[in-house]
């Protein structure tokens, strides 16, 4: 029989997960068996600890708040609005309701029979996955390890296909490298290479690699007549070789090649050059593995003669980024690659600028990336944030030295701007005399921010503490970091101020109307994913690593990893922060690529339900880590 009501319900449900992935007949069966119920404001659908109903609920109109009773207090855990489902987990797990559901405004609910859904779950994998995700985001607490493992008996089967963020494939390398001994002549080595049709040969001693000869060496050193072909291979081999462990990932291999400007990596038993050689990984292997090739871009960067070709390369990198995001390649890998490309471009811009200067730099200096660039978390084209440090000079030489570096910085920032890194609107750039300082000036600057922690000073700290040397002298930067820790040591209350700063943006509890969107301005009604979700994690990680005096960790993910080791009792929390951070970063990048902007503001209406769900899942760790800061630094008193 025709049933207009069921058709309407069908039309409604089909827009929301998991109903959107159901077969037509399956969904129609659900729709035809819905019970529609109305609940007045402030009335309960069910209460915590109650036995589960026969139905779970989908919000048709209105809003249902999910509350947990704790110490006679009702804590709002989540708000469900149109299309959200709730009250399902206890039905499937045969458990009591963990939360109470109360109408925050008058609501119409569709009650859906769990029996029908169970039948469908058996046959529809996508539904199963969605439900697991939704359960874990609703109930996952970092302190309840493995809760989501018990949802279904066959969870193992699902987990294997659910690992998009965590795995990076190991690089495949050739297991039978072509080798020769150091007693061989160049001619003999070249013969072996042509016979085996390879572009490189390893020189081994007791099976340990001691050097490598590539086609390039033969071209540049033999064909040019520099060295005779009858000489020993040791005359032209590159030595020592860069060696790595077997488990090197594609990402690590690429980075190693980029960093060391080499095209072949030796794989040895324990990763050092003191053990047996077991394989060679060439750039070509990686190209084959990847199809797309970031190291090619890096190569182009180093060959670039002018800014325009750098600009072109940066645009290419954006395409690469797009491809990676589409292929769902782990965000860590993506950010490493993109950061390396950005870094290479910056270095090239510095080198080009140095060539343009009349004379060599008068003293050693360091070019620092700040903020998200410093943390290597910058994926999209954002503003440039940078600074410059130079060696201390006698006071009579200070002015000319500073003038030199300001002039250099101006050239560099101009180039970066042409390449596509916009000028920083707040002028946090090395071309600003305030941020082009000698080492002792920097030390004083940090010291004064730390000892007079005004709001502005805290802002500066959040930007300048995440610096990373891009070009120049390592020692200068090391001394800068040291001075920060020293100043903090002598003025520990600074950490409390930093904690307060880290809590200025509480995360939202759910996507709900105007609840969490910006109230005014250009981005009215949009969600600020940067300041509301990413920054709280970044700030927390920075503060906590500072408190542990952990050095050399400027990246949010590696900071949390380090923290998980330093505080085993909070390991779960920190690991869930890493997960959230990855998801949020990926999300922001995707948004930015889609809308061709910084990805900072998200239009909630354009998100699919599952996108909302996955974002929502990220908020819990943010809240938890903020709670931890609150308690640890006694911030309630300071607020």
């Amino acid at each position, binding site marked *: *029989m*025709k*049933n*207009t*009501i*069921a058709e*309407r*319900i069908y039309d409604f449900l089909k827009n929301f997960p998991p109903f959107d992935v159901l077969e037509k007949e399956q969904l129609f069966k659900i*729709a*035809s*068996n*819905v*019970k*529609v*119920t*109305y*609940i*007045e404001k402030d009335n309960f659908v069910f209460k915590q600890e109650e036995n589960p109903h026969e139905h779970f609920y989908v919000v048709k*109109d209105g809003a249902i708040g999910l509350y947990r009773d704790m110490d006679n207090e009702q804590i709002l855990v989540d708000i469900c609005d149109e299309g959200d489902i709730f009250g399902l987990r206890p039905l499937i797990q045969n458990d009591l309701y963990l939360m109470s559901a109360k109408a925050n405004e*008058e609501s*119409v609910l569709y*009650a859906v029979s769990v029996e029908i859904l169970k039948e469908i779950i058996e046959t529809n994998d996508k539904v199963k996955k969605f439900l697991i995700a939704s359960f874990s985001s609703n109930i996952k607490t970092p302190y309840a390890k493995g809760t989501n493992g018990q949802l279904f008996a066959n969870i193992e089967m699902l987990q294997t296909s659910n690992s998009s963020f965590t795995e990076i494939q190991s690089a495949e390398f050739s297991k039978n490298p072509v080798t020769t001994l150091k007693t061989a002549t160049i001619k003999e080595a070249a013969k072996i290479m042509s016979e085996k049709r390879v572009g490189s040969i390893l020189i081994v001693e007791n099976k340990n690699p001691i050097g490598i000869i590539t086609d390039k060496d033969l071209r540049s050193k033999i064909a040019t007549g520099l060295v005779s072909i009858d000489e020993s291979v040791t005359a032209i081999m590159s030595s020592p070789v860069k060696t790595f462990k077997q488990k090197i990932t594609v990402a690590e291999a690429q980075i190693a090649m980029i960093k060391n400007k080499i095209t072949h990596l030796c794989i040895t038993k324990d990763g050092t050059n003191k053990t047996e050689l077991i394989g060679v990984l060439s750039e070509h292997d990686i190209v084959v593995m990847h199809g797309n090739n970031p190291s090619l871009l890096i190569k182009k960067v180093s060959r670039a003669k002018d800014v325009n070709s750098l600009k072109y390369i940066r645009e290419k990198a954006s395409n690469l980024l797009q491809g990676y995001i589409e292929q769902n390649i782990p965000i860590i890998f993506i950010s490493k690659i993109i950061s390396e490309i950005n870094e290479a471009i910056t270095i090239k811009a510095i080198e080009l600028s140095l060539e343009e200067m009349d004379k060599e730099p008068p003293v050693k200096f360091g070019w620092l990336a700040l903020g998200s660039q410093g943390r290597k978390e910058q994926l999209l084209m954002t503003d440039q944030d940078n600074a410059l440090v130079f060696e201390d000079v006698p006071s009579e030489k200070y002015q000319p030295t500073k003038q030199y570096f300001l002039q250099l910085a101006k050239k560099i920032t101009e180039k970066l701007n042409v390449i596509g890194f916009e000028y920083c609107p707040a002028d946090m750039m090395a071309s600003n005399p305030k941020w082009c300082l000698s080492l002792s000036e920097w030390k004083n600057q940090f010291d004064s921010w730390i000892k007079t922690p005004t709001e502005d000073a805290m802002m500066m700290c959040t930007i300048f503490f995440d610096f990373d040397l891009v070009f120049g002298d390592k020692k200068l930067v090391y001394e800068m970091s040291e001075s920060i820790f020293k100043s903090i040591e002598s003025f520990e209350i600074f950490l409390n101020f930093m904690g307060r700063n880290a809590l200025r943006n509480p995360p939202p509890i759910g996507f709900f109307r105007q609840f969490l969107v910006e109230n005014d301005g250009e981005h009215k009604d949009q969600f600020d994913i940067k300041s509301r979700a990413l920054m709280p994690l970044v700030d927390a990680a920075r503060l906590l690593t500072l408190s542990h005096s952990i050095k050399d960790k400027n990246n949010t993910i590696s900071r949390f990893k380090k923290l998980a080791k330093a505080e085993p009792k909070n390991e779960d929390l920190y690991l869930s922060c890493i997960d959230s951070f990855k998801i949020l970063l990926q999300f922001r990048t995707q948004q930015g690529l889609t809308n061709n902007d910084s990805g900072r503001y998200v239009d909630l209406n354009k998100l699919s339900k599952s996108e909302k769900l996955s974002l929502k899942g990220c908020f819990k760790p943010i809240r938890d880590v903020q709670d931890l800061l609150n308690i640890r630094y006694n911030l309630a008193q300071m607020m």
Partner: protein
Amino acid sequence: MIRFFKKKRYPEFWSTHIEKVQNSQKYANFEDIRFVALDTETTGFDYENDRILCIGAVAIKNNKILVSDSFEIYIKQAIFNKETVKIHGIRKDGNEIKLSEEEAIIKFIDYLDDAVIVAHHTAFDVTMINQALNRLNVGPLESKQLDTNYIHKKIAKTDTYKKIFSLEELCEIYNVKMHDRHTALGDALITAYLFLKQTAKYKKNNALNLFDLINTNYHLPK
């Protein structure tokens, strides 16, 4: 003359109807009562000459609208009124599967079971059904009846004695979205929503009791 005194013999569907309504045990407990929100589309408003085109109904029990327990049926027309096609969209030879009036009414009475009828301006729909029953030499409906218009008058704080509320007005007052207006089942669903909201409001001040609700209906059979 003998025939006059003979006990009237009803067709089976009708004797079942009477028996079910009269013997129902459910009316005392509100949670057990099956309500049927119904709406009819007709060729016009003349009880004598116009006919039912379509009956739509959906059941409500324990504060829930049961989508699986709904009813939608179209009736073949002898009489046809071009004017009302504009409203209900049911053409004389449309695509819907249509039954004869007799088949449709018997199916409906069977669906109705011992339910309490809820409608908006119930008198009209019930009279149209009674007319059809009359043509089968039975009727009128024994079912208990409620009217969302009168329930509202009872709840409303202002003196609305003389005012007759349209379905649209009530939707406005109770914040019910209007979909599928002027299809029988669509209007039946809207009526069901109104009823849910009204009983929720009513419950605030009174224990829910069928007979109190029925007493809001001073002009319908009690």
